[in-house]
């Protein structure tokens, strides 16, 4: 999955940094945003392969961001992983409705996040090959 582009969204700059370093060390290209509005704009301009976003952010929550991404032709199918400090913040039904590919609880393991990203992108590549 080397060379794939990941958009990391979090208002906590330390989280963006740590995720970016983990992903870059493993061959990914990383772009970032610190709020939902900026993330939506970056997603439309840069067309990332996958988005990792925090759930609770000022002005626009991660869930609101995903809802907005799903309404946009360019980003409607982009896989999204939600990072949340609130357990059970997003129901299974909500995850299915918004096609959220994965949910990780904070504190999270960068190792586990990388594994999830690789898994989601691999499954996506296989499914696209089969189509």
């Amino acid at each position: 999955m080397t060379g794939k582009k990941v958009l990391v969204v979090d208002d906590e700059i330390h989280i963006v940094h740590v995720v970016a370093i983990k992903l870059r060390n493993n061959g990914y290209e990383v772009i970032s945003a610190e709020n939902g509005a900026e993330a939506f704009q970056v997603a439309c301009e840069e067309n990332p392969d996958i988005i990792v976003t925090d759930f609770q952010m000022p002005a626009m929550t991660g869930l609101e961001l995903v809802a907005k991404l799903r309404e946009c032709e360019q980003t409607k199918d982009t896989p999204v992983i939600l990072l949340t400090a609130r357990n059970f913040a997003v129901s299974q039904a909500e995850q299915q409705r918004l096609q959220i590919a994965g949910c990780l609880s904070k504190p999270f393991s960068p190792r586990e996040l990388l594994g999830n990203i690789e898994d989601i992108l691999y499954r996506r590549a296989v499914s696209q090959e089969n189509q």
Partner: protein
Amino acid sequence: MFDCIVSCVYDERREVCGVAAVLHDVTREKEISQIKSDFVSHVSHELKTPLASITAYAEMLADGEAGDEKTRQQFYSVIQNQANRLNRLIEDILNISRIESGLIRVEKQPISMTILIEEQLRMIKSYAADKSIEVITQKPIVYDQVYADKDMISQVIVNLLSNAVKYTPSGGAIKIETAVDEIAGIARVSITDTGVGIPPGELEHVFDKFYRVDANKKQAKGTGLGLNLVKQIVERVHDGRVFVTSEPGVGSTFGFELPLATTTTVEAA
């Protein structure tokens, strides 16, 4: 909202002759339960945020993901700062909780607001100088003694002063004023900054627990508890009053009023 218990009423032949219903108004209990649940949820989120950084950076160090010594030092520094943030949060939460439950030990004594402010200013001046912020004080007022817990009011002054420095851009100014209204029997402290200011719609919430002005989050880090602690100490512990006025882009004035120490209050101690 009511809890309802319904029971049959039997006569002497053990036949049902009526129904008794007991309604218990649980509206307040439900509200309190919701407030508690929201608080716990909010606290856990606030605690998990620094914890997330600590565990992620520690794992990165353990996995050898920090490529060079400089990066390793940055990671150590993030862990240390986030651990300090966690500690501050826990301290603030505990202090607010102790005040709310009435368990905190309060040691009131007659103290001069001017002297107390001067003591706290010494601590904040180097922080202000680092940002080239001018600190303007007035001439001491002759009598501004309040009957208060010295440590707690020091905490109030430090929180307000450090907020003023935090949210004032370099080259700005902070003005500290003390006034005494002998007729009303109060001493008033105002701290005015030339900072970023607070939008009108958010002003009424700035003393709420965990409330942070969205537009100003980038400006400085904070737990969102400092101003709530100020309010609790001033209003709940000292029967005083906090106030705030602000104009975005111009600055804010935060302050508080405390009852003046009178002969009666001091003798009553």
